[in-house]
């Protein structure tokens, strides 16, 4: 399609009853509360405007949008005038034309007229509006005072701020306040002297509070705020709507292209997950897709101490297939397995698990959700009957009390966090359960009613104490429980939580949460209206991760906060397609749609379709595969799009497992850390180079559309298909839509999903079937998927990872807005401007005890290993607790994390490791050895030399 800018209706959508009026002789019906400007735009009459845009509330400052209304005096601004029934509006009259020209003339007289060389030429509202009002001459001359020589702020790596071009419409300020909720911009001064400023007078964009979400850039009608890429490449000439491949929010974007070159990613206004907003990653951090480190030829080597040899696809795939066959012949069918990726599409993930089950003939398939949300799957399936969150994102706008547990939405789920902040500014109350003072505890115009700064590892004790308050103070919703849940189970649970030893006072010594604060928080959640719980990896990545998820579900059921908008249990999913990867049967015990592999009927369904017989025994999880490898029983693995060496706990053990295998096949964009141990490397393709679907945290399935040709020549699903063919499987998909047809045929919750429907509807939230043909934004409305909601007794079992004299501090880990997971992508973008290295947050008291100052190199040691990094002294963390991110391989935070894991799912206990911190003067031996190994392992002998 050619390039069309997204329509701008001038002012936000209204929701009232229909009102009919007449605009330029045309009858128009719009919801009450709409402005005249919006009504006109909906009827395709675009009234000239400058200070209005539909992402923010109207402001009424530019006076360009004047109209005449029969029976009214003067010329009201259409952007601030609400529609009324039977109004008769005129948008084009000689009087209006004259007035508008006058307004425009004033604007233009203080604006550089370098349109021909301006980056926004052809994509500038000021230029368009000057044309629209018929401005042909400017009477004022340019000699008077103006702003034309003010200097540009080029500090942000992705966009420039050129104040000379600013018309002070304040769209940027309002976008930052209302859409993003960061309040980084202000208009300083007044009248002619007014100007836009980022933060205080001394700040530039980079040093200000700005989080580089791009909302202001999108809102700016001129080229004052302009993407650097547009200046570099030129304005786009076509666009394709696709889905962000970073996090589980699942923002949709228009990839705006010039030929095969991506100019910019602009959030798509019709996207139901993001509603036109974005964060720095999806909006700007896509440079990795063209990064020079990308590997585009397949490579092989016999031993990992040899350099890589580039080979043809043919050779690489036939070699991979023969290795797998050789190993299976020697060590047995179950000595092989695969790992699917939450970064890849549903279709690709489905194929990898199909390859393992139907091709390798076992169920040794697992996925990176093992290390993040596997407890969500287990916990929510056990209690509610389905392994997914209960709500859509829109639901937060109906919440009255928001309870955030172990999640940091402003960093990890920023676009959803902006929606949440909007609701909080409207008055919803906030409770935060987190060891750290995350940004939301106090940020502009937001303050948590209660922050429960618990000691890491005591989630279950805190949640059970909240349940104790709810039950013993008579705050449970008995009518809901009797109708919707198993009453006997509830009574057992109620008796359990009511035990005085589970009261807030009794557990305070171990949780460190003041009992009275906990009581107040529990009362607020139970009685404050619609209560919605949002949680993240601070819940799941514990030895009691699954218990915590069930404890959360118990709270929601006990208070009747399930089954309608504004409530629910919402896991904030990490990766773009972690929900999808789980749905697609990536776990070793489940076929797609969460059906156990031992279920004969389900197996028969797949066996019939695939023409093979399937192993009825569960396969190995990632940690089991690594253990078996060390034992010599697991020898070959196909890893698509996951870097287990960096992301999984206890790096030494992962390295030992990989080193013990005879055939490690890594299918990825880059030579990642795991590839240091690989024998076959298959180059992957980025989300910009493929077709398929992702499923976000609200179960929303959205299309990923190819915008450019894959650098390696193939989309990832094609590579898996070629490997399957090399193994003798008769696969002949020609497009991912056929894979989705197969998924829909075999998976009841996807029965109504096709690419054509997704294209027509924009997105669908599963289950999509006969009962819910348009999908299911909110689940468990009339009853739980499993029938009756199940209360599960969750006893607090302290972790075995204990502090002591040698390791007196607790380390917890997390991530930061500008970086993404192991950083393979974001480290290859300009986002490093915000986070060039991982730092260790440590409380001033603990730092002083150790003689450490901010910025010092420190040694971080645990029972598993040690690493070094620099300290950040802050009271964000409580005394006794230290915190770091794991975005940089040089830090190798997972050298330190332990091997303890969730009792039900083996999700690693990343959030609690006993450590000691001391002064250091350089990298550890492991860091140095590893650096040398990496360097050795990444050598490539090019094709000519090698063959």
């Amino acid at each position, binding site marked *: 399609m050619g390039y069309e800018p997204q329509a701008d209706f001038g002012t936000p959508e209204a929701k009232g009853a229909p009102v009919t009026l007449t605009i330029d002789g045309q009858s128009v019906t719009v919801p009450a509360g709409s402005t005249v400007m919006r009504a006109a735009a909906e009827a395709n009459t675009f009234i000239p405007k400058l200070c209005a845009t539909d992402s923010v509330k109207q402001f009424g400052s530019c006076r360009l949008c004047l109209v005449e209304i029969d029976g009214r005096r003067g010329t009201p601004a259409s952007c601030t005038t609400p529609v009324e029934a039977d109004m008769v509006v005129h948008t084009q009259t000689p009087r209006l034309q004259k007035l508008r020209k006058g307004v425009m003339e004033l604007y233009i007289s203080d604006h550089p007229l370098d349109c021909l060389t301006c980056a926004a030429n052809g994509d500038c509202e000021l230029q368009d509006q000057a044309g629209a009002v018929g401005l042909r001459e400017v009477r004022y001359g340019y000699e008077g005072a103006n702003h034309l020589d003010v200097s540009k702020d080029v500090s942000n790596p992705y966009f420039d701020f050129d104040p000379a071009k600013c018309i002070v419409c304040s769209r940027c300020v309002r976008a930052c306040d209302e859409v993003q909720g960061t309040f980084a911009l202000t208009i300083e001064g007044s009248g002619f002297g007014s100007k836009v400023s980022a933060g205080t007078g001394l700040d530039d964009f980079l040093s200000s509070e700005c989080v580089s979400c791009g909302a202001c850039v999108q809102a700016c009608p001129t080229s004052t705020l302009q993407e650097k890429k547009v200046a570099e490449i030129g304005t786009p000439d076509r666009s394709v709507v696709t889905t962000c491949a970073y996090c589980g929010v699942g923002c949709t974007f228009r990839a705006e292209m010039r030929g095969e070159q991506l100019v910019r990613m602009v959030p798509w206004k019709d996207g139901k997950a993001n509603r036109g907003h974005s964060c720095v990653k999806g909006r700007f951090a896509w440079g990795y897709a063209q990064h020079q480190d990308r590997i585009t030829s397949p490579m092989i080597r016999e031993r990992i101490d040899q350099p890589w040899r580039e080979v043809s696809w043919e050779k690489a795939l036939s070699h991979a297939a023969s290795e797998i066959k050789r190993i299976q012949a020697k060590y047995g069918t*179950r000595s092989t397995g695969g790992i699917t990726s939450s970064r890849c599409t549903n279709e690709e993930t489905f194929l990898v698990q199909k390859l393992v089950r139907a091709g390798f003939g076992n*169920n*040794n398939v697992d996925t990176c959700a093992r290390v993040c949300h596997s407890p969500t799957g287990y916990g929510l399936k056990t209690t509610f009957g389905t392994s997914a969150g209960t709500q859509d994102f829109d639901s937060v706008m109906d919440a009255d009390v928001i309870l955030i547990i172990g999640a940091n939405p402003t960093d990890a789920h920023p676009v959803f966090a902006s929606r949440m902040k909007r609701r909080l500014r409207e008055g919803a109350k906030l409770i935060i359960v987190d060891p750290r003072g995350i940004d939301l505890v106090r940020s502009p115009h937001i303050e948590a009613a209660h922050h429960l700064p618990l000691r890491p590892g005591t989630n279950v004790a805190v949640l059970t104490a909240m349940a104790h308050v709810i039950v013993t103070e008579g705050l449970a919703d008995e009518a809901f429980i009797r109708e919707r849940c198993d009453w006997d189970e509830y009574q057992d649970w109620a008796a*359990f939580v009511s035990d005085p030893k589970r009261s807030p006072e009794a557990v305070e010594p171990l949780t460190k949460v003041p009992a009275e604060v906990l009581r107040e928080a529990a009362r607020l959640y139970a009685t404050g209206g619609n209560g919605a719980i949002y949680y993240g990896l601070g819940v799941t990545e514990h*030895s*009691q991760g*699954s*218990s915590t998820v069930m404890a959360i579900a118990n709270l929601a059921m006990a208070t009747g906060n399930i089954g309608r908008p504004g409530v629910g249990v919402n896991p904030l999913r990490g990766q773009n397609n972690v929900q999808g990867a789980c749905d697609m049967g990536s776990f*070793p*015990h489940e076929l797609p749609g969460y059906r*156990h592999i*031992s*279920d*004969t009927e389900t197996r028969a369904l797949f066996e019939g379709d695939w023409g093979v017989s399937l192993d009825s*025994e*569960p*396969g*190995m*999880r990632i940690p*089991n595969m690594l*253990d*078996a490898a*060390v*034992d010599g*029983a697991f020898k070959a693995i196909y890893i698509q799009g996951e870097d287990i060496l960096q992301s999984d706990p206890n790096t030494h053990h992962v390295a030992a497992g990989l080193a013990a295998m005879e055939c490690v096949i890594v299918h990825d964009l880059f030579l990642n850390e795991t590839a240091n141990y690989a024998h076959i490397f298959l180059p992957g393709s980025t989300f910009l180079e493929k077709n398929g679907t992702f499923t976000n945290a609200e179960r929303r399935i959205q299309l990923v559309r190819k915008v450019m040709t894959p650098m390696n020549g193939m989309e990832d699903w094609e590579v898996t298909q070629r490997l399957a063919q090399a193994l003798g499987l008769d696969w002949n998909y020609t497009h991912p839509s056929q894979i989705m047809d197969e998924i829909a045929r075999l998976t009841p919750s996807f029965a109504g999903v096709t690419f054509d429907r997704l294209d027509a509807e924009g997105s669908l939230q599963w289950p999509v079937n006969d009962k819910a043909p348009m999908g299911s934004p909110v689940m468990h409305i009339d009853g739980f998927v499993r029938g009756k909601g199940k209360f*599960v*007794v969750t*006893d607090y*079992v302290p972790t075995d990872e204990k502090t002591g004299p040698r390791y007196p501090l607790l380390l917890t880990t997390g991530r930061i807005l500008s970086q993404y997971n192991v950083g393979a992508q974001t480290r290859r973008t300009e986002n490093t401007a915000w986070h060039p290295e991982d730092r260790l947050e440590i409380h001033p008291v603990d730092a002083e005890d150790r003689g450490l100052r901010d910025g010092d190199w420190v040694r971080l040691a645990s029972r598993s290993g040690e690493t070094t990094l620099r300290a950040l002294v802050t009271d964000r963390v409580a005394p006794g607790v230290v915190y770091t991110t794991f975005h940089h391989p040089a830090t190798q935070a997972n050298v330190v994390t332990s*091997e303890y894991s969730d*009792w*039900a*799912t*083996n999700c690693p206990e990343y959030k609690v490791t006993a450590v000691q911190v001391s002064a250091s003067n350089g990298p550890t031996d492991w860091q140095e050895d590893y650096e040398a190994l990496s360097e050795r392992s990444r050598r490539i002998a090019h094709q000519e030399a090698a063959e």
Partner: protein
Amino acid sequence: MNSEEKLVYMANQIARNIAPSGAGEAAEAVADHIAHFWDPRMKQMIFAHINAGSTDLSPSALAGLKLLRTQDASGQSSAG
């Protein structure tokens, strides 16, 4: 921990978390959980460990595993 020690640790951890649902049901719940989530090699290893006269499994873990072994032998694993 070597693989065998890890399996013992895991079985004990499962039993400890499941136990509060009532001793009678606990053995069944432990057996059910392990049947659902452990691969055949892990099950064989822990059965061999029991046969060798283990003393490091908690009573409820041991009861659960023994129950599972009987079910497996009679082909009526509770998985599914």
